[in-house]
Each structure stands twice: as structure tokens, then as C-alpha cells.
């Protein structure tokens, strides 16, 4: 009985804490987490498609650049990349600003935390997306590309009418995977001071001394975000591969 009473107390404390403003803060945290993830995915998509193209190129130099990119950014700890971009970026910006005289010789020009964060996570996401895009391109039926050439399509038309739609279809499952990775990587941005879910949970846990409560709530919220995205990607996959599944 005592256990139940204890639990009741816990629940009412949790309710009070969340109602006292931490709930709203956590919701904002979710918003920032999604914003970081979406922007990082977009940066990653742009970089990833360029890197995939470089890795598929006939030119040895481009292939080397592409290979190096995916090797480095998949092989380094995410946290290191984020520190490198945020603190390293701050150092570079400060140096440049001091030398041009835009700030005083003792002032510091900080890397904007959101920008530094999404650049770092976007670059990491791009390394994984590059592999997804490359695999998808290689999975396109060669004959369909050949038909596009045989019908007089220019390289640009082949890219737009045949390659992009097919790469997107083949890439959806892999991109779903990268999306989940990127949601989780976004938590690391908390070190730069973006008030996303992880940082908010951290603050709440420290200032209220209810670590168990807030980290559990944050954990559940991350799980909700990742599990909601699964059926969304499944739906996208069903739509983009409709030409290969049996018609109803």
C-alpha cells in the first residue's frame, strides 16, 4: 500500500512540475528538435547527393573527395564534429572579425548555436545520405537509363525524368533510417545551447532535482517522434513504389 501511495505522490509531483511550465518548455524542446532535424536532413540531402555524384564519377579526383567525405564523417564521433564546428567555428569567426577590426581585440564572435549545430549534424547526415543515394542510383535498371539515351534525352533530362524519380523511390527506406539517426544526433546539439528537447530536459532535471522524471519523459518523447516517423516513411514508400506493387 505504501508503494502505491508513494507512486501517487510521484505522479502528482510530476503533474505539478509539468504544469508549472516545464511541460510547455518540453513542447518547445520538441519543436526545436524537429527544426534541427528537418534543417539538418535538408542540408544532408544537398550534400549527400553531391557526394554520391562525386563517388559515382569517372574522375578519380572527385571519387577521392567523395570517399574521403563519407569515411571521415561516418568515422568520427558526432560529438567531436559538433565541437569542431561550434567551438572551432567561433575561433575562426573571432579571428576573422578581429583582423578586419569589426570587433575589439578582446571580444569574441560566437558561432550562432543553431547554425553551427545544424551544419555539423547536416554534414554527418549527408555522409549517411550519400551512401543511400549511391546505392539507389546503382539499383536503377540500366536498361531504363539506356532507353533514355536512345530516345535523345540530354544528361539533364535523363537526370530529371528518370534518375531523380527512381533514386527517390529506392532511397525512401534508407532515408527513413537516416531520419531516425538524425533525430538522435540532434540531441547532441544541446552542447551548443540550442534549447531542443535534450537541453530542456537537462535544465529541468538539474533545477528541480527530478532527473528520473524528466529524462524518462524526454525518452518517451523521443520514442514518440521516432515511432511516428516510421509509418510516415512506410506510407511514402508505398506511394513511391506503387508501380511495382500489385494494383488493388
Amino acid at each position, binding site marked *: 500500500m505504501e508503494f502505491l501511495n508513494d507512486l501517487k505522490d510521484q505522479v502528482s509531483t510530476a503533474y505539478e512540475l509539468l504544469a508549472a511550465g516545464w511541460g510547455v518548455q518540453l513542447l518547445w524542446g520538441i519543436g526545436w528538435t524537429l527544426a534541427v532535424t528537418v534543417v539538418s536532413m535538408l542540408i544532408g540531402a544537398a550534400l549527400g547527393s553531391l557526394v554520391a555524384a562525386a563517388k559515382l564519377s569517372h574522375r578519380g579526383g572527385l571519387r577521392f573527395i567523395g570517399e574521403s567525405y563519407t569515411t571521415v564523417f561516418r568515422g568520427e564521433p558526432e560529438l567531436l564534429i559538433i565541437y569542431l564546428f561550434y567551438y572551432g567555428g567561433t575561433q575562426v569567426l573571432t579571428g576573422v572579425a578581429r583582423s578586419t577590426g569589426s570587433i575589439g581585440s578582446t571580444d569574441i564572435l560566437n558561432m550562432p548555436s543553431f547554425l553551427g549545430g545544424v551544419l555539423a549534424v547536416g554534414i554527418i547526415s549527408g555522409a549517411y545520405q550519400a551512401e543511400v543515394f549511391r546505392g539507389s542510383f546503382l539499383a536503377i535498371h540500366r536498361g531504363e537509363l*539506356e532507353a533514355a539515351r536512345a*530516345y535523345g534525352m540530354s544528361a539533364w533530362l535523363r537526370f530529371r525524368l528518370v534518375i531523380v524519380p527512381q533514386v527517390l523511390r529506392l532511397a525512401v527506406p534508407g532515408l527513413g533510417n537516416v531520419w531516425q539517426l538524425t533525430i538522435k544526433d540532434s540531441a547532441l546539439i544541446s552542447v551548443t545551447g540550442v534549447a531542443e528537447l535534450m537541453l530542456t530536459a537537462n535544465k529541468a532535471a538539474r533545477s528541480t532535482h527530478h532527473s528520473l522524471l524528466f529524462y524518462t519523459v524526454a525518452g518517451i518523447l523521443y520514442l514518440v517522434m521516432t515511432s511516428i516517423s516510421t509509418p510516415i516513411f512506410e506510407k511514402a514508400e508505398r506511394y513511391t513504389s506503387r508501380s511495382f506493387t500489385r494494383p488493388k
Partner: protein
Amino acid sequence: MSANVAAAAKAAPSSGETPAISVKDLRKCFGDHEVLKGISLEAHKGDVISILGSSGSGKSTMLRCINLLETPDSGEVRVDGELIKMKRSRDGHQMPADIRQVERIRANLAMVFQSFNLWSHMTVLENLVAAPTHVLKRPRAECLEQAEALLKRVGIWERRNYFPPHMSGGQQQRAAIARALAMNPKVMLFDEPTSALDPELVGEVLRVMRSLAEEGRTMLVVTHEMSFARDVSSKVMFLHKGEVDSVGEPKEMFARPPTPQFKQFIANFNK
């Protein structure tokens, strides 16, 4: 080249008009293997030329050299009298000098492939209008109208909104022929169009091809269909080990095989 080739060349209609396709001394190696050892061919408007040969004889490679899906090592290809300009790359390989010219000429040489190669993410109708609207830049409405008429002609209009993977091989190949016709091509190139089909589906595709021959289309057909070669085509060309072994009028060729190789080849088919 055997004496038969020279005789056939003389017998060919030489009205002085420009040949639709003219190929001279085409050579092509894959690594150390010489696939084409100097092939020449002339196709005039309305010709239906069946290109026969056992596998490895170079017949598909020759067809693919005409629209530059393969780049010949040497020799020249003219389409409607226009020479496809070639140049040497730094490593000494021949390559097209002007890719825009190649793209323009390809649009006049619609190809039908063994494995259909329809664009699987587009419906049949979209497959038919994609190249005419984007490559030939014709108005979409006009292309759609023509596409529907062509699909009726090849008998798959009901399937116009299907995706290719949802159709039988015979239907896909008929759609691919309609896609070729939608380009209003000067010459149609068929690369073993029935070889990937189940036997019971071959007939529907051959019927369409026969009707195209009857309306005077210029066609180069790489095929193993002896009845098509004998009964439909206006000329038969037999390739053997990368060379033109014999060329001639089909009924004559089949009745009196001009070379031992061709005799052996058709004997194997009649077994």
C-alpha cells in the same frame, strides 16, 4: 566480304536517293575481342532489313553502334546522309564530337529493346509522351492524343494508365513499340524484340511489327524469328564472327543459302 555482298549491293535500289542509314566499315573491340570487323550496311526508305546471326556474331553491337549506344572504334555512320561526327579522346578512343548532334539523331532512330526498358515509374501513357514533349518539344496535348491513338493501334489502350511492371511481357513490348512510334522516327531499330518473351506472347508483337513493315516503315531488325526474316523483311543480312557473311533477298537466301555458314545457321533453326 564475300562475293555475295558485292552482288547484293549492286542489286540494291540505287535510285540516287540518300540512304536512310549508311554504315561504312564499322569496327568495334571489347577488350581484346574484336566484335565487329568492318561492317557496312545501307538501308533505304521503306527497307525492312532483318539482321541474323548466332549469338556473339556482333549483330546487336552493330545496331547499338548506329545510335551510338556503343561507340564504334572506327568507321562511319550516316543517318539521312548526315555523318555522325567523331573525334579522338586523349587516350586514343573514338568518341562523339558533338553530343547534341548525337542526341538529335537518336531522336530520329527510335529503338525497341529486348528487355523493353520502359520507364517503370511512369504509366504507359507517360512513357509515350515523355520523349516527344521533352526531347522533340511538341505540345503535350498533341502528344497525348497521338499516344492514345498509338496505344489503340497496338491494342493496349485499356492499359494506358498502368505501370509497366503490372503488364505482361507482350503488352510491355507493344507499349515500347508505341513509344518508339510516338517519336515519328525516320528509322526504327529493333534489338531482338521477341527474345525475352514467352513463346505464346511472341505472336502479338510480331503482328504489330508486320503491320509496321506493311505501311512502309524503315526498320532494322536484329532477330531470331526466321519466319519474320523470310516473310516480312525486304532484305536479310547474315553476320558471322563480326563480318557480313551474306546479304540478299529473303526468299532467295532461304531457298538457296549462298554460303555454307548461312546454310548451317538455318539448318540449326529448323532442327
